[in-house]
């Protein structure tokens, strides 16, 4: 019953293996990203920015390749892509509405004192541990 299928399937197995190979290359690049980033930093482009771009930019590309080619979204009816895009937009909306309260710890006439105290305490503990030349355990077993 393959006759009426979209001609994407006439790609044959080699096509999918090719996509897989590209995905692996991208994976390797994203692993190398944090390692080479400090060497590539220049001007305002700091190392962590490059890492973010390689890590998440590559993730987006990988996701697109899987979605378009493995899930066949490139030949599926548009309506499905709109559905998925809408769900993603809702997640951005959720982030936009919640982050000002949860990501930020102070705003117009308010301050999350408990969170700021916790951050300060943890950073100090990490600083103190570093000063002793060891890795900080990060073991925050704060009892109530």
């Amino acid at each position, binding site marked *: 019953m393959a006759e009426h299928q979209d001609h994407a399937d006439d790609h044959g197995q080699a096509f999918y293996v090719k996509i897989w190979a590209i995905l692996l290359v991208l994976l390797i690049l994203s692993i190398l990203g944090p390692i080479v980033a400090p060497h590539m930093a220049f001007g305002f482009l700091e190392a962590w920015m490059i890492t973010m771009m390689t890590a998440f930019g590559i993730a987006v590309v990988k996701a697109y390749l899987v979605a378009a080619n493995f899930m066949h979204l490139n030949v599926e009816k548009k309506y499905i892509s709109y559905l998925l895009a809408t769900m993603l937009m809702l997640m951005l909306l959720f982030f936009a509405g919640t982050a000002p309260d949860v*990501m930020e710890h102070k705003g117009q006439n308010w301050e999350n004192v408990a969170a700021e105290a916790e951050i300060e305490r943890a950073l100090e503990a990490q600083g103190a541990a570093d000063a002793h030349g060891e890795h900080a355990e990060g073991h925050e077993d704060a009892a109530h």
Partner: protein
Amino acid sequence: MSTTRPIATTRSATGIPTGKLAVWWVIGSEIVIFGGLLASYIMHRLGHPEWAEYASHTNTWFGGANTFVLLTSSLFAVLAHHAAEHGDGKKAAKWLLGTCAGGLVFLCIKAVEWTGEIQHGYTITANGFWHFYYTAAGLHALHVIAGCIIMLIIARDAWKGKELQRVELIGIYWHFVDIIWIFLFPLLYIAK
């Protein structure tokens, strides 16, 4: 249980087969579940600079290996679909078993990874970063397990040449699980 398939199931006013339409809606609902969890994680990660140090203890090689395993299992899943499209149920079943095996390898690597981390004291209650680390990866792992189980059932039917259209459907679900991991990998392992 004399439930013959209703005529309703065979209709397709949208042009998309009912099974596929349903799977895409499932994917839609899963996007918002993982999206909510990961959006919450990102907010905390960006708002808590001390988490950078906690996150440095994840093992990028384990994470990378698992990414490789899932990408390969996705390849197997789409090859299974390809075989099913051409009516070859037995080949499709074999590729599905390969996909499932990939899922099991993924879980094994994760088990080893987590055992090591727990022994080092990085337990789920250690701090906020580890809360999210185990919960997000754990929820993902539950989806891997569920996918494997369904995949085995579909593979069994496909081997007998039955319900071949379902090979594509479980493939779509599996690719989605793979895509979640594609984002979990940088979130938990690279962004340090």
